[in-house]
């Protein structure tokens, strides 16, 4: 963080950049949130909870700007398209093999 507040007349300091586009930019962000979290395994309920949580400021801003119905539609689309994630338990054996491979080297 900066040690002091920037001088207000310093031309190289950006003091806040507003979104030049309105609803469309917010909708774009909402899709990004929904798609990325859906691909990580979030279901519709978990995604909606994320959008409703005011501490997830970006997602919540989209929730308030677009409304609950629009967010539900976005979530539904993204979960339908990307929400088929499966979980695979990763055994540690593969890592052990690499270590065995390196054991003969003078590192």
């Amino acid at each position, binding site marked *: 963080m900066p040690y002091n507040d920037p001088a207000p007349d310093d031309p190289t300091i950006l003091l806040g950049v507003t979104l030049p586009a309105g609803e469309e930019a917010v909708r774009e962000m909402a899709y990004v949130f929904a798609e990325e979290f859906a691909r990580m395994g979030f279901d519709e309920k978990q995604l909606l909870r994320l959008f409703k949580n005011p501490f997830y400021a970006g997602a919540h801003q989209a929730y308030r700007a677009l409304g609950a119905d629009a967010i539900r539609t976005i979530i539904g*689309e993204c979960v339908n398209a990307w929400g088929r994630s499966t979980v*695979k338990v990763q055994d540690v054996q593969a890592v052990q093999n690499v270590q065995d491979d390196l054991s003969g080297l003078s590192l």
Partner: protein
Amino acid sequence: MANVHNWQLGREMTYPYKAAYPERQFAFVFNINRCIACQSCTMACKSTWTFSKGQEHMWWANVETKPYGGYPMFWDMKILDLLDRANLEGKGWTGATSSDPKTPYGKFDGRTIFEAERMLTPDSARVLGYLPADEEWNSPNIYEDNPVGQRGAPGEFHKTGEQLPEHKTWFFYLARICNHCSYPACLAACPRKAIYKRPEDGIVLIDQKECRGYRKCVEACPYKKSMYRGNTRVSEKCVACYPRVEGKDPESKGQPLETRCMAACIGQIRLQGLVKMNRDGTWTPDRYNPIYYMVHVAKVALPLYPQFGTEPNGYYIPPRWVPRPYLRQMFGPGVDQAIERYENPDRELLAVLQLFRKSNRIIYRYEVKEGPKVYEGTLRGKRVTLYNDTVIAYGREGQEIFRTNVEEPLHVRPAKHANSI
């Protein structure tokens, strides 16, 4: 001054040396849409190359938060301002994006940092640039998205932060290393000819025996990726982990490895390769090299600030939520097409995006094997069909490195090792 063709600008430009191109070129694609600024790349580089006394301020790999952050502070704003002053009659792009590999983004009509004679001081200078002050190197994360409490109450956060005034801001994380440019500004500016570009892989290095620490390279590099070391009095820069790229890391058993910053990327935003070069400086068509595919076929990856004129070999998939004028300034006129393609990927692009970070071996070729249809419906208001294709990556000798699916599983630790870190 010689005339060279800069395909990213779609025109000839002047450069202090005659054109000479490597057999292959070190190049990489960063997908900014996925970067979470965890700084794993930054620390992988730091712990490998710049952990010694005198290198404290050096971050050959860094991730900065745009539009506020920058390392060194305001590097891009300052060089863009210099370029603006060198182009008082205006600068811009004409023509349209095209399939011609010599003019893929149209033509840049302004002056580059090599063509700004009237701005150069002293007259003997070859490149437009500036030398950052010491304090500009000191805070690589300044103005980033750190949480901040009330002034005078260190370590305490607002208890009702969600009720504070809300600013409609946007930001994204820009991961950067040396771009190992085709027309390096550092090389052009060095009065000792201590900087060279390797003919086998295009990696740009500073000969530590020849360097006398004049810092002309630090001044000239528009990306500020050449850095001065006070205790040895010479300059240093990213070496592209060349022993790994050469296949000399014992782990690889002779196969070329990607750099440390690439291999450490947990966000899976990075893919690095070696692209074949033509004698005229364009890339040799190599349809199934993933870097070639993303830059010249799918056109989803774009150079960083191409208007500088150095023909950087780092390419970025632009962040799709950021205002377009800002992105066009940063990545040139191909932005709209790149984002359109990334938002609506075809079957092949979806598969190629799965190649990111499945292995630390350099991928020379990929192959897509068609899989079953898994979804047909709407996404973002458009009809889409998704397939669970398999993508296979091949190494230098044509051997298979790995194969993965479009719908890859989430890998988790077994329950007994859940807290083993």
